[in-house]
């Protein structure tokens, strides 16, 4: 098998997805077949071919360092489920003891 149930559970946790047992089974199968397809590509000899990371062969365009207008705080916060003054308010998440 290309991927184990435990690996699927770990990836789900990293992505903050909560999966039922049935979903873990289903996605293990689906992800497995995707990886098998990738394995087929691995069979090709790619010696000397640079890995493709971008579909368009171009250099990164650069922008001059000129500050534009900022989004007003009201609009930046418009979609916040909870706010406190001009801050986003979120469940406490401080780590450590």
């Amino acid at each position, binding site marked *: 098998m290309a991927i184990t149930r435990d690996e699927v559970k770990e990836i789900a946790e990293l992505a903050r997805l909560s999966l039922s047992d049935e979903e873990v089974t289903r996605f293990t199968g689906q992800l497995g077949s995707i990886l098998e397809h990738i394995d087929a590509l691995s069979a090709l000899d790619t010696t000397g071919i640079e890995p493709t990371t*971008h579909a368009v062969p171009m250099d*990164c365009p650069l922008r001059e360092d000129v500050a534009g207008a900022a989004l007003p705080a009201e609009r930046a916060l418009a979609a916040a489920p909870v706010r406190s003054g001009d*801050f986003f308010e979120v469940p*406490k998440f401080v*780590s450590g003891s």
Partner: protein
Amino acid sequence: MSATTTSAATAAPDFEAVIGLEVHCQLRTASKMFSAAPTHFGAAPNSQTDPVVLGLPGALPVVNRQAIEFALRIGVATRSKIRARSRFARKHYFYPDLPKGYQISQYDEPLCEHGLVQFVLDGQPREARLTRIHLEEDAGKNTHLPGRATSLVDLNRAGVPLIEIVGEPDLRSAAEAGAYLRALRQLVRWLEISDGNMEEGSLRADANVSIRPRGQSALGTKTELKNINSFKFVEKAIEHEIARQIDVVTSGGRVVQETRSWDAERGTSFSMRSKEQAHDYRYFPDPDLPPVVVSPDWIARVTSALPELPAQRRTRFVEALGLPAHDAEVLTGERALADWYEAAVAAPSKADPRKLSSWVQSELLRVVKDTPLAECPIKPDMLAELVALIDAGTISGKIAKDLFARMLQSGERPKVIVDREGLTQVSDTSAIEAAARAIIEAKPKEAAAYKAGKQQMLGFFVGQTIKAMGGKANPQLVNDILKKLLES
């Protein structure tokens, strides 16, 4: 300090610390790393954002050229190897201060690698290797209010350009780590790419610390020390961690690989237990950002525009101007100060560089503590003129101190004040002799004491005579004349 630290310190000679620093430094650009949102520090919460910063759907990043230029500057200054094609990658993790769910950083193809940082420890020049310098974006800022179930998030800082300067584990003591970090701060300020302010968070350091028995080459298990947010605490925090590890090992335990947070108030650190088993950031090349290409021409332009660096300038001050090493170090602390001093040396008055150096350190630095050097009413050529006036015997050292204070008030040149107020030192021997005679006549008891062998009375007469002449008498002449008169 606790008993733990004391026992560890006693055992310390058997162990050697191995330290490497990871330094994050905000670049002083006007706009953010990947968009035109402004970067004003201290602005009202969430007032410095735009759709790219907020990670809104459809927003696309565009790289800030100035940020690349700034990173190139420190890359060249540290003699790093510059990558002609470097790449941005996504580093994934979930945190409320990271709106996109990933940070754009550089991973396996950073802009700069294998550099070198030069610094001074106890007057000795040292070097430490750099693994890499890469570009990334900063995250937002969180405020945790005590006693509340929620935290507050301000995204003004999100997207501010950062360089991460990753050092090799070449440092062997807390003092060395401190000196290295101060040299980095000096360098980023010198290159004018960051204000390097730890208290405001524009310079942040994490320390990887491990210990090993002296003489062993294999590395011990390291811990990562985070949240050292002041220069005051850098050495203290690392010192504490070294002592803690030595204590663990000497009491039969093993150092656990973990991230620890420094608590400056309590002077101790605590373990930050991460919920994620291992950090798995699932890096991959950012599809929105093609490779950044830096041409040899661009590197050449940055190289030729580079100022003379602190280490070179320090050496030159010692070798060409004859300054003691300590003076050279102080004067090259900030580029503006080194420039100021050098302008004074080059001024038409041709004042002695060593005397100028001591005036700058004892007088100038005292008065510009809280104001920028450029705003000081005393300009380099004015100080040079003052020092030259003392050297020529025109004014006494005492008058010079008063003059300095008055120049600071009025911004007038010393010669102007001297001429207007007749402050020229009296070197006329007959005038001095007349004043000296009068003093000796007025103080027969003291004169008799001197003649009876009480040598230290001479100082009394010198002081009295100079005072009688309004502070303007040449002290050396006064001294000679008094000696002659009293001993005749």
